């Protein structure tokens, strides 16, 4: 693929995004709540697109397509079970939104700290989120690096790609905080889905239409249409990969923080439904992508190469190939900038705000802005380690974030939950996950995420029962939700 084309496409993408980012600037953003959650005034449409762009990253068309290539239809089940898991938003969304508005929460960990009446809860949860999300961002950055390198036959080096993505993520989050992130996200989301859908339709028609496409799969690659199929998607692997993703909408602060942002419950509804439709289409596109690569290029050793190969093949018109490549890059950047912004808000609000006595909102905002590039550079350094299995690392970080899930569920549904319960469950199971990931041992053949959720749930319940619950706060908090929910959802 011509390197000149690639540079032109990147330049146009950057200019268009910058234009939108500047347009998004409104009145001065001088508070934490305006910079990081848009004053809780996001409309439904932007919320939906931005939620989609933040959730779906380079993983979809590279990692998920690669998983389809290697193991077949199990990848579809894996991604769709995640999507079904987003139904959690239908239950937790309005609750997050209501208490966010009433108590002025900017971050999910701030909510946990307040609900369990203990600052250490907010600090510890934030630190663990950073610990797991920085490698996740690094994986995204590396994704861009590999993509550009692969598509241009090394004319654009891995490092150049990673640096471009890092700089863009910093710039998009800096220009106007969440406003520029949400608006550039929206542009990128539309771009991602439109371009990839068009190309998939072209690929299918060039492979002889949908009927032939399915027929070829059934006759030449039958093992790709069942699970466990060729053995890649054994049930334990499937379970180990789906469980962390199932809870993604609660466990990952860059998306759960979004539940505070819509301007009304109606906008929250639009966000959820819009996202589900977007996710459904994008998942199908990524899976067809992987299947097409399996039909066209069977026998690759590195499945992550399936997408770059497909894009530069004769199935895809060259210009479209470049455009989709930029779409994948946009998917990565729109995920990284949201994570950057969320992590900075966690650090500023929950770590700095709780440790430094008398830290005002203004001081927190200043710290938040300083932290954005620092976190980006940390992610960049991780990316330069050049780890090669994108999907596995992505799942490893979402496994780590799972340990917060019992505490979040307890926040809304269990009066007896205590700060000691949260702290023990997050710290102990978080450390266990890190050990499992580092040593790559699989106790009883089960993945780290499953251990994480089981151990953290048990610890949360047992330790909570042994300690004293913040009864007054819990009654007031849950009582408010009960009344407000009745009024708002009838």
């Amino acid at each position, binding site marked *: 693929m011509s390197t000149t084309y690639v540079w032109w496409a990147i330049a146009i993408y950057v200019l268009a995004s910058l234009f939108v980012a500047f347009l998004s600037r409104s009145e001065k953003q001088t508070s934490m709540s305006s910079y990081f959650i848009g004053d809780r005034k996001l409309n439904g449409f932007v919320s939906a697109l931005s939620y989609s762009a933040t959730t779906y990253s380079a993983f979809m068309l590279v990692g998920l397509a690669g998983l389809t290539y290697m193991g077949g*239809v*199990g990848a*579809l*089940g894996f991604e*769709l*079970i995640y*999507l*079904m*898991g987003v*139904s959690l938003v*239908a*239950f937790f969304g*309005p609750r997050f939104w209501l208490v966010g508005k009433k108590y002025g929460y900017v971050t999910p960990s701030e909510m946990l700290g307040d609900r369990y009446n203990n600052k250490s809860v907010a600090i510890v949860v934030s630190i663990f989120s950073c610990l797991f999300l920085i490698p996740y961002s690094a994986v995204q950055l590396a994704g861009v690096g590999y993509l550009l390198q692969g598509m241009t036959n090394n004319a654009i080096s891995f490092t150049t790609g990673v640096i471009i993505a890092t700089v863009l993520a910093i710039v998009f989050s800096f220009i106007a905080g969440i406003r520029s992130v949400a608006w550039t996200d929206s542009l990128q989301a539309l771009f991602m889905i439109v371009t990839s859908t068009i190309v998939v339709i072209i690929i299918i028609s060039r492979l002889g239409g949908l009927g032939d496409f*399915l027929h070829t*799969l*059934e006759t030449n690659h*039958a*093992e790709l*249409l*069942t*699970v*466990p199929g060729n053995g890649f998607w054994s*049930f334990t692997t*499937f*379970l180990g990969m*789906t469980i962390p993703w*199932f809870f993604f909408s609660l466990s990952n602060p860059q998306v759960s923080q979004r539940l505070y942002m819509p301007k*009304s*419950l*109606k*906008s*929250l*509804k639009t966000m*959820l*439904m819009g996202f*589900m*439709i977007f996710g*459904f289409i994008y998942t*199908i596109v990524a899976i067809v992508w992987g299947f097409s690569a399996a039909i066209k290029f069977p026998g690759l050793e590195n499945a992550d190469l399936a997408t770059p190969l497909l894009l530069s093949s004769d199935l895809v018109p060259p210009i479209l190939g470049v455009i989709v490549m930029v779409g994948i890059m946009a998917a990565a950047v729109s995920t990284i900038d949201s994570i950057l912004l969320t992590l900075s808000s966690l650090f500023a609000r929950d770590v700095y705000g709780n440790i430094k006595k008398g830290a005002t909102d203004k001081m927190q905002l200043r710290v938040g802005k300083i932290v954005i590039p620092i976190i980006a550079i940390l992610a960049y350094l991780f990316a330069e380690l050049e780890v090669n299995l994108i999907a596995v690392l992505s799942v490893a970080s979402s496994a780590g974030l799972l340990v917060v899930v019992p505490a979040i569920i307890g926040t809304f*549904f269990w009066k007896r939950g205590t700060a000691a319960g949260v702290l023990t469950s997050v710290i102990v199971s978080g450390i266990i996950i890190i050990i499992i990931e580092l040593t790559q041992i699989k106790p009883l053949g089960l993945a780290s995420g499953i251990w994480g959720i089981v151990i953290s749930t048990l610890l949360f319940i047992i330790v909570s029962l042994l300690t004293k619950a913040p009864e007054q706060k819990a009654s007031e908090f849950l009582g408010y939700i009960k009344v407000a*929910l*009745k009024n*708002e*959802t*009838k």
Partner: protein
Amino acid sequence: MKENEWKWALTIFIIILLAYILPYTIITEVAKWYGSLLLWIVLTLTVIIINYFITKNWGK
């Protein structure tokens, strides 16, 4: 949780259980487009429709 929330939650839970169980049991040998491929798509669409009903009255 409100009563109707429980009902929806249970329905979704059962659908998700099916999404885990069926592909690995009854249709594990069905190497056709109407096997696991179609099943997962249909189950997901059902869940999306349920979400529509859960959120229908929000903000009204």
